[in-house]
C-alpha cells in the first residue's frame, strides 16, 4: 500500500500537540490549579466563581463579626458597671432607711446618690468608635442628659431603634438594646428608681419602697444583660462556624480546581519522553531515500 511519502507534516502536528499538552501541564504546575481559564472546565469554573464569592463573603463576615464583638463587649461591661452602681445605691438606701439617721445624714446620702446618678448617666452614654451604644439607632446624639425638670431626673434623646447585622449566610444578630428599654423603661426605669430614692431620702418618706424599686431595677438590668451575653456566645459560635466554612470552601476549591500534581507531573514526564522519542526517531530515519543509494 502506498503511504504518505512526506511524514513531516504529521510528525510536526504530533510534536505540536505534545508541546501544547506540556505547556498546559506546566501551567497547571505553576498555578497549582487545573482550571486556568473557564474553557478548561466550564462547570468547575462556575463553581469556583461561586466559591470565590462565598469565601470572600465568609472573610467579610469574620471582619464584621470582629467589629460587632467589640461593641457588644463594651456594652456588656458598661451594664455590669451599672449593676455595681445600683448595688451601691441599694446599700446607701438601706443605710438611709436606718431610723437612727437624721435629715442631715440622709441629705449626705442623697448627695452620694446624685453622684451615682451622674455615673449612671455617663455609663448610659457609653460611646464606642464614635457611636453612642445605648441611644437606639440615634448613635450621634447623646442619649441621656440630666434634666431636673423630668420626674426621672434625665431626658432620653435616643430612639427605640435596633440594628441587626448579617454575619453569616443565614445568620444575623441584633447588636444593640436601646436605652429606652435598658435604663428608662416605663415599667422598670433605672433612672426613675434612683431619682425616687434621692427624693425619698431628701423627704424621709418611703425610703424602703424606693430601695425596693432600685433593687427591682437592678434585677431588671441584670436580666437585660443576658441579651449581650447571648450575643457574645452566638458570635463565638458563629466565628467557629465561619472558620469551618472557610476550610470547607478551601477544600471545595481544591477539589474543583486544584491540580493533581502527582498526576500532572507524571503526565509531563511521559509527554517529554514521547516528545524526545519522536524527535529522535525523526533524526534517525528521515534522511534516506533511494536516490542516496543510486550512485
Amino acid at each position: 500500500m502506498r503511504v504518505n511519502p512526506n511524514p513531516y507534516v504529521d510528525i510536526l502536528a504530533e510534536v505540536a500537540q505534545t508541546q501544547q499538552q506540556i505547556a498546559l501541564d506546566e501551567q497547571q504546575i505553576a498555578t497549582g490549579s487545573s482550571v486556568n481559564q473557564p474553557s478548561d472546565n466550564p462547570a468547575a469554573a462556575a463553581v469556583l466563581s461561586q466559591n470565590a464569592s462565598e469565601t470572600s463573603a465568609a472573610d467579610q463576615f469574620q471582619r464584621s463579626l470582629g467589629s460587632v464583638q467589640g461593641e457588644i463587649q463594651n456594652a456588656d461591661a458598661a451594664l455590669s458597671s451599672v449593676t455595681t452602681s445600683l448595688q451601691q445605691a441599694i446599700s446607701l438606701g438601706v443605710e438611709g432607711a436606718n431610723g437612727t439617721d437624721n435629715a442631715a445624714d440622709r441629705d449626705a446620702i442623697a448627695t452620694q446618690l446624685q453622684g451615682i446618678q451622674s455615673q449612671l448617666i455617663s455609663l448610659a452614654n457609653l460611646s464606642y468608635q464614635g457611636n453612642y451604644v445605648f441611644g437606639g439607632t440615634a448613635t450621634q446624639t447623646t442619649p441621656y442628659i440630666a434634666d431636673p425638670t423630668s420626674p426621672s431626673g434625665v431626658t432620653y434623646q435616643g430612639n427605640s431603634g435596633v440594628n441587626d447585622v448579617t454575619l453569616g449566610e443565614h445568620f444575623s444578630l441584633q447588636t444593640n438594646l436601646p436605652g429606652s428599654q435598658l435604663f428608662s423603661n416605663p415599667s422598670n426605669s433605672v433612672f426613675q428608681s434612683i431619682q425616687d430614692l434621692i427624693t425619698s431620702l431628701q423627704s424621709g418618706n418611703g425610703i424602703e419602697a424606693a430601695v425596693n424599686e432600685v433593687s427591682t431595677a437592678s434585677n431588671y438590668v441584670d436580666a437585660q444583660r443576658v441579651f449581650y451575653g447571648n450575643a457574645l456566645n452566638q458570635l463565638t459560635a458563629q466565628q467557629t462556624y465561619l472558620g469551618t466554612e472557610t476550610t470547607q470552601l478551601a477544600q471545595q476549591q481544591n477539589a474543583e480546581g486544584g491540580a493533581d500534581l502527582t498526576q500532572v507531573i507524571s503526565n509531563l514526564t511521559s509527554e517529554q519522553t514521547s516528545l524526545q522519542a519522536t524527535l529522535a526517531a525523526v533524526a534517525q530515519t528521515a534522511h534516506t531515500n533511494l536516490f542516496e543509494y543510486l550512485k
Partner: protein
Amino acid sequence: MSSLNASLASALSGLIAEQGAMDATTNDVANVNTPGYSREQPVLVSSDPAVIGALTYGTGVTLQSLESIRDPILEAQIQEQTQAQGQFTSLTSALQQAQVSFTTSTNDIGTSISNFFNSINQLSTNPSDLALRQGVLTAAGNLADSFHTTANSLNQQQSSLDLSVVSQVNQINQLTQQIAQLNTQVSNLENVDQNAGSFIDERQQAIDQLSSLVDVSVIPTNNTLTLTTANGAPLVAGQQSFQLQTAVNATGLHDVDSQGNDITSQITSGQLGGTLAARDQEIPAIQSQLNTLASGLVNAVNGVQQGGFDLNGDAGTDLFNPPPASGAAAAASLSVAITDPALIAASSDGSAGSNGNAEALYALSERPVISGQSPSDYYSGIVFNVGNAASNAEAEQTASTQVLQQLNDQRASVSGVSLDEEAANLVQFQDAYSASAQVITTINDMMYAAIQMSTLTG
C-alpha cells in the same frame, strides 16, 4: 514485410517515450515540496501495430499523456473539513479572547460584586462611619470599572472581528478571481486535449484556501468549475468570478452582500462563518448577559437606596446612574451617581446609626434579583456559558483538525511525490532509454553491414 527503418522508428519511439516519462519524474522530483502538487504518471501505450501480409508488426510506443494522480472524492472531503476547521479556528480564537475577561482575577466582575457587597456588610457594623461609607463608594466605582473593562474588551473584540470579516471577504474575492483565471487556463488546455495537471493542482490549492474561508460548494461543469456558497450565492461560474461586497449596516458592523443580497446570516462555515458567528452570536450573547447583570444589579441597588435614608436623614437617591431603558449597553455605561459618601442610604429610620437599609442592600447579594438568580450566581452562569462555548469550539477545532490531517494524509498517500518511487522510475526509464539506444546502435550496425554488402556486390 518489415524493414530496418521500421525497427529504427520503433526504437526511436522508445527513446522519445522514455524521455517524456523521465520528464514526469523530473517534474515530480522538482515539485516534491510544492503544496497541493499531485504527482504525474506517464501513460505509455503501444503504438498501433502495422499489419503486413500475414504478420502484425508492433510499431513502438507512444507517450499518451502525463496524468496527475488525484482522488476527487477525497478532495471534496478535504474541502468540507477545511471549512469546518476554518470555522472553529476563528470561533475558538474569538472565544478564547473573550473568556480572558471572565477568568478569576483581582478585578473580574465576580470579585468586584463580592467586594461591593462586602463593603456594605462592613458599613452595616457602623453605618455612620464616613470611612466605611467611602469604602462602599470606592467598591461601587470598582464594580463599574470591572463592567466597563469587560464590556469594552468585548466591544473591541467585536470591532476587530468586523475588520476580519472585511479582510476575509477581500481574500475570498482574490481567490475567486484567481480560480476564474485558472478555469480559463484549464479549459483552454483541455479543449485541445492537453494535460492541465499543474493548473488543476493550482486551482485545487486555491479552492482549498477558499474552503478554509467560506463554505464552498464545487460543481464541475465541462472542463471547468462552478463555485457557490453552500446557500447558492455565486462565487465563480466558469471563467467569471462574482465579487462579494461588504456594507456597513445599522449597527455599524459589515454585512456581506452577494449581487445586492445580504447573505451574512447564510454563511455558516469556513473562517468567515466562524468570524460571523463570533461577531453576531457568541459575543452579543455574552454582552446581553452582562447587560442583564448590570441593569438588574443597578435597578435592585437603586430601588433599595430609594427606600432608605442617607446620613443626613434625607430619603436615599440612586447610587448608580440608571441604565438605559432598553437595557442595552448597561454594562458599558454603568457609573456611580453620587460622590458624597453621606448620601449612601444605610438608614431605615432616618437616624444616622440605623443600618436597616444597609442590611437590605446587603441582602441583595443573596436575593434572586437577576432573572431569578442572585448576582454572583448569575455571574457564575455567564462564566459557565463563556467557558462552555470556548471549550466546545476548541473540541470541534481539535476534532476537525485531526480529521483534516488524516484526510491530507490520505491525499498525500495518493497524490504525494515519493522520492523512492521517483528514483525507481528514474532507473526504470533510464534503463529503457539505454536499451532503446542500444537497439538503435545494433540497427545501425545492421544497416552498416547491409551497406557494406551492397558495396561489395556493387
